[in-house]
């Protein structure tokens, strides 16, 4: 995949074509390791050999869109598949440093759903850094997420922290959404982000994570962030930037200069590729295909040479 223009401004089509969208995606197939070097992703081989050659650096996991409480035909047992994902994490030969969860922990923000999610995810015995999805702010008083995960965070729940020389930033782009618009960070959060990055060495690897993609994936389905470009302005001067998102329940990747964008699979249900269905709603697939479309991602840094590898592992297949 080349680092080409994804806006398709020179094309004859007025809208983004399906072919173009597909060109903009990297479907990380089973067991393929993507290594990012000099802005160009290269497939190195199968997971097993990649894991064996794993460097001793920072390694963390991303899970996303667990939608605890979802029980519709696309996956009547979203709790079961979350348990399977956590089971796989527990069985990993190399224990990751921590885990991030990029939102939609629950389906309807019910206390019982949050409790259930905590009960299952805590079994991984890893620190978990959360950002909320729009499904986590549905309770009447909008307090359950913040009570559980928002301590020490700013605003609606944004924060940053450091690990092994990597600076990680959790952003919230699911509140104060405007009619007709996309995800939204808001002025207050953007100011905080600018201040958070000010004075930081440009060689610090940056990881930004948020629920809705910070890049424009498919606006017709709301897959993008209205003011995401402003956040990206603040990070683009850094030598290594990785943007990790969820929300779209499928793996997509794009590279722009030093910035790698990547979205993780859900542990609950798949969603269709952009424009391939009437809506982005849950996609029903044959029972024996479901687990190939659910999964987790692991992100590995080898400090010093600015290389980052993202491995998407499906629950099955």
């Amino acid at each position, binding site marked *: 995949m080349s680092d080409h223009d994804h806006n398709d401004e020179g094309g004859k089509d007025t809208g983004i074509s399906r072919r173009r969208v597909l060109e903009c995606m990297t479907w990380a197939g089973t067991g393929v390791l993507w290594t990012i070097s000099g802005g160009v992703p290269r497939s190195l081989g199968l997971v097993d050999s990649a894991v064996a050659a794993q460097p001793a650096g920072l390694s963390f996991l991303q899970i996303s869109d667990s939608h605890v409480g979802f029980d*519709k*035909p696309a996956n009547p047992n979203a709790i079961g598949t979350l348990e399977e994902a956590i089971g796989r994490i527990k069985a990993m030969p190399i224990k990751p440093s921590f885990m991030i969860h990029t939102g939609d922990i629950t389906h309807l923000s019910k206390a019982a759903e949050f409790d259930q999610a905590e009960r299952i995810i805590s079994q991984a015995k890893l620190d978990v850094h959360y950002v909320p999805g729009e499904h986590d702010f549905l309770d009447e008083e909008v307090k359950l997420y913040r009570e559980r995960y928002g301590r020490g965070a700013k605003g609606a729940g944004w924060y940053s922290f450091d690990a092994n020389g990597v600076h990680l930033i959790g952003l919230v782009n699911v509140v104060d959404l405007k*009619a007709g618009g996309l995800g939204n960070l808001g002025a207050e959060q953007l100011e905080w982000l600018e201040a958070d990055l000010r004075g930081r060495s440009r060689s610090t690897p940056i990881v930004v994570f948020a629920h809705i993609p910070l890049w424009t994936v498919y606006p017709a389905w709301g897959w993008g962030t209205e003011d995401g470009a402003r956040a990206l302005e603040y990070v683009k001067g850094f030598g290594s930037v990785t943007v990790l998102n969820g929300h779209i329940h499928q793996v997509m990747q794009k590279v722009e200069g030093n910035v790698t964008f990547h979205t993780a699979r859900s542990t609950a249900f798949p969603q269709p590729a952009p424009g391939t269905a009437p809506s*982005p709603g*849950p996609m029903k697939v044959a029972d024996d295909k479901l687990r190939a479309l659910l999964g987790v991602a692991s992100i590995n840094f080898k400090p010093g040479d600015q290389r980052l590898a993202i491995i998407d592992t499906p629950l099955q297949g």
Partner: protein
Amino acid sequence: MIPLTQRVGGKLAIAVAICLFFGGAHAYAGESEITIDNFTFSPPELTVKVGSTVTWKNHDDIPHTVVSAGKFRSKTMDTDGSFSFTFTAAGSYTYFCSLHPHMTGMIKVE
């Protein structure tokens, strides 16, 4: 497979029949329903008379809301959930889903 044009034609015929049934009226007091299917409000624009009650019903497997800034705000409607609002003042009410803001609609009350 029925050709797309033919199916659209069929829908059009039904729509015309409904219009004829209601005497071609643009607005009618009483009850109206807006369905949510595939992340879309249907009909996206609706004209009703003052005093009418509009009910939104969610047929998707994903929850939705309807919010009209300063006018009304539903609770989260899960699958098959609904929300009703009675319009007591004339005007144009634009609304959207606060979870999926690309979903927008309009009620014209006259």
